[in-house]
C-alpha cells in the first residue's frame, strides 16, 4: 500500500503530463519507441545457478539452490519449486524492510505461476525416492536496482539461473536399495535441470488515453501509467500466464494484439537468454579443461616441491608425498589440510600460485576456491620472480 503511494508522490504533475504527451507522438522519455525493449544483458556468477540481469537500469539477481526434502503428500513423485523475492530498501526507497510487501508477493506469484503451472520444469525428474526424497528447488530473487519493469527482469533472471543450475547426481545404494548416495560434483558431473520450455514475461503499460501502449515501462512510466499487463509466453506462442490485476479497463482486441506482440518479444528474449547461457556453458567447459590440465602440469613442472622445500625446509619431501595423495581429490580436501598443519596449507597456496602461473592467464583463478581470499599476493609473486 505504502509502496504504491510513494511511487505516485514522487512524480510532479508536469512530469506526468510530459510523459503522456510525448507518448502521443510515439516518443518515450528515454528515446525508445513505444514497443522497444531496453538493453538486456545477462551475466552469470561464479557458482552454478546464479545470474544477474540488467534491463536498462534495472538490476535483478537470481540464485538457485537445491535441497533434498520430503515431497508433498499429494504429489509423491514430484520435486518442488519455490520462489522467494527480496525487495530490499536499497533498490528503491519505497520498498519497506522486513516482510515482503504486496508488490513483492505479486512478482513472486507471477513468476511462480509462469514456471510452475505451465510445467516448464520437469519436476518428476527431481524425484529420488517416491514419497521419501525429492529435490526442492528454490529460486531467490533479489532486486538490486529498481528502474521499472521488475517482473520481466526478475523472470529473465530466474530463467537464466535455472538454465545454468546444476544439481549433484544421486543414486540409490545400500542392501535394500533405499540408501541415497549424493555424489559430490568432483566425482560425477552435476546434472542440469530439465526445462521443457522457457516462459518469458513481457509487461505492457497502459495509460489513461486508451490508445497508448508501451512495452517494458520504466520507473517513471510506471508511476504515470494506469494499467499494467504481464503476459508470460514461450517461444512457441503458448501463453503460460497472464496477470492484469484490475486497474484500467482495456478492450479485448487490444489485449489480443498485445499477446501477439508479446509472442514476438518472447522469441527474441528466449534467443538472448539461450545465447548467453550457451556462451556461459562454453566458458565453463573450457575452464574445466584448463583445470584438469593445470593439475597435471603441477606434477610435471615440479616447482612445487622445490618451492615447498625453500619455505618449509624440514618437511619438503613429506609434503610432496602428501600432495600426491591429495591430487586426485579436490578442494574439499584442502579443508583437511587446513586442520592438520599450517605448513601444508602454505604449500598448497604455493601450489596454487604455480598452477596459476603454469596455467597461464586463466580466468578460473580464484573461482570456486575457498582459499583465494587468503592467498597473499606477495607470497605468490615471490616464487614467480624466482622462476624468472
Amino acid at each position: 500500500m505504502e509502496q504504491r503511494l510513494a511511487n505516485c508522490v514522487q512524480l510532479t504533475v508536469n512530469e506526468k503530463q510530459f510523459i503522456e504527451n510525448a507518448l502521443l507522438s510515439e516518443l518515450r522519455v528515454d528515446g525508445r519507441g513505444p514497443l522497444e525493449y531496453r538493453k538486456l544483458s545477462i551475466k552469470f556468477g561464479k557458482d552454478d545457478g546464479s545470474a544477474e540481469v540488467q534491463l536498462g537500469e534495472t538490476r535483478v539477481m537470481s540464485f538457485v539452490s537445491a535441497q533434498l526434502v520430503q515431497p508433498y503428500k499429494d504429489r509423491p513423485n514430484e520435486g518442488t519449486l519455490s520462489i522467494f523475492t527480496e525487495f530490499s530498501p536499497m533498490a528503491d526507497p519505497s520498498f519497506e524492510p522486513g516482510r515482503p510487501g504486496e508488490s513483492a508477493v505479486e512478482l513472486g506469484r507471477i513468476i511462480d505461476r509462469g514456471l510452475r503451472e505451465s510445467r516448464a520444469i520437469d519436476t518428476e525428474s527431481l524425484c529420488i525416492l517416491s514419497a521419501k526424497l525429492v529435490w526442492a528447488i528454490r529460486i531467490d530473487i533479489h532486486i538490486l536496482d529498481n528502474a521499472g519493469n521488475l517482473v520481466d527482469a526478475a523472470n529473465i533472471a530466474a530463467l537464466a539461473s535455472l538454465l545454468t543450475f546444476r544439481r549433484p547426481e544421486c543414486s540409490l545404494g545400500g542392501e535394500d536399495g533405499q540408501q541415497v548416495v549424493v555424489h559430490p560434483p568432483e566425482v560425477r558431473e552435476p546434472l542440469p535441470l530439465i526445462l521443457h520450455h522457457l516462459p518469458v514475461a513481457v509487461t505492457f503499460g497502459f495509460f489513461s488515453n486508451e490508445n497508448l501502449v508501451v512495452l517494458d515501462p520504466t520507473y517513471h512510466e510506471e508511476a504515470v501509467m494506469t494499467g499494467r499487463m504481464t503476459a508470460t509466453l514461450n517461444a512457441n506462442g503458448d501463453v503460460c500466464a497472464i496477470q492484469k490485476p484490475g486497474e484500467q479497463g482495456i478492450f479485448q482486441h487490444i489485449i489480443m494484439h498485445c499477446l501477439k506482440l508479446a509472442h514476438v518479444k518472447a522469441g527474441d528474449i528466449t534467443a538472448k537468454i539461450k545465447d548467453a547461457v550457451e556462451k556461459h556453458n562454453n566458458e565453463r567447459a573450457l575452464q574445466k579443461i584448463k583445470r584438469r590440465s593445470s593439475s597435471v602440469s603441477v606434477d610435471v613442472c615440479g616447482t612445487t616441491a622445490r618451492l615447498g622445500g625453500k619455505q618449509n625446509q624440514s618437511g619438503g619431501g613429506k609434503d610432496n608425498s602428501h600432495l600426491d595423495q591429495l591430487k586426485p581429490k579436490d578442494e574439499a580436501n584442502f579443508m583437511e589440510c587446513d586442520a592438520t598443519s599450517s605448513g601444508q596449507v602454505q604449500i598448497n597456496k604455493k601450489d596454487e600460485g604455480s598452477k596459476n602461473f603454469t596455467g597461464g592467464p586463466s580466468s578460473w583463478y580464484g573461482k570456486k576456491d575457498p582459499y583465494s581470499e587468503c592467498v597473499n599476493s606477495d607470497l605468490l609473486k615471490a616464487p614467480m620472480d624466482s622462476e624468472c
Partner: protein
Amino acid sequence: MEYVSPEGLRLDGRRPMEMRQIRAEIGSVSKADGSAIFEMGNTKVIAAVYGPREVQNRSQQISDRALVRCEYSMANFSTGDRMRKPKGDRRSTEISLVIRQTMEACILTHLMPRSQIDIYVQVLQADGGTRSACINAATLALADAGIPMRDLVTSCSAGYLNSTPLLDLNYVEDSAGGPDVTVGILPKLDKVTLLQMDSKLPIDILENVMQLATEGCKAIANYIREILLENTKQLEYRRGS
C-alpha cells in the same frame, strides 16, 4: 481423466458453456455500509464495505482521491480439509491486491477525497472460482453502500479441458491442472479490467476461452443489475414519500 463425457456433459452435469446457479443477497451484514452474499454453485462469498469514512491512518490519506483497501480471507471451514491457514499468506495477499485494484478501477475515487473505503471479502464455501465470486460480491456490496462507480465489475472464470472450453470451473475442474482464465469486465464500457491466466494455452484458443468467460461475465452482470434494481425499488416503496 475425462472431464467432458462423450455426450458433452461435465462432471456435475452441466454443459460446457453452462454456468452454475448464481444467487445474490444484499444486506447481510447489518453494521456495514454495504454488504452482500454471492453464490456460484457451491462457492459462497460474503463481502462487506465500510466507507467512505475518515482515513484511519493519517499518513495514508490521499488528498485528491479516496483510499481503497481490501482484505480477502478464506474461512478455515471453507475447504474440504479443515486446517488453520496462516493469515496473510502469499495467495491471499495477491488476491487482496487483485480485488483492490479491480474495484479501484471502477470506483470514482476522486469524488471522495481524503476518505477511505474498506472492502472485506471472506470465502465461506470454496468450490472453484472464488476470485470471481469475491469480485461479484464486492461489486454488489459497493453498490449497496451507495459508492459512486463508473460501471459494475463482474467476473467469471473459464477453462480448457479435454479440448473443450468450459465456463465457470468448479473445484474438481480447477484442480485438474488445466488452463484457468479469470476475466473481470466492465460490462457497459465493454472493457476488460482483470485478466489472470494459468498454465499453457496457445493464443488463438486463449481468445476463445476468454470470449467465453466474457460472455459469462455479461450474464452475471445482467443478474446483478436485476438484483440491484429490485432492491432499490423495494427500498423506495417501503420508505414511501
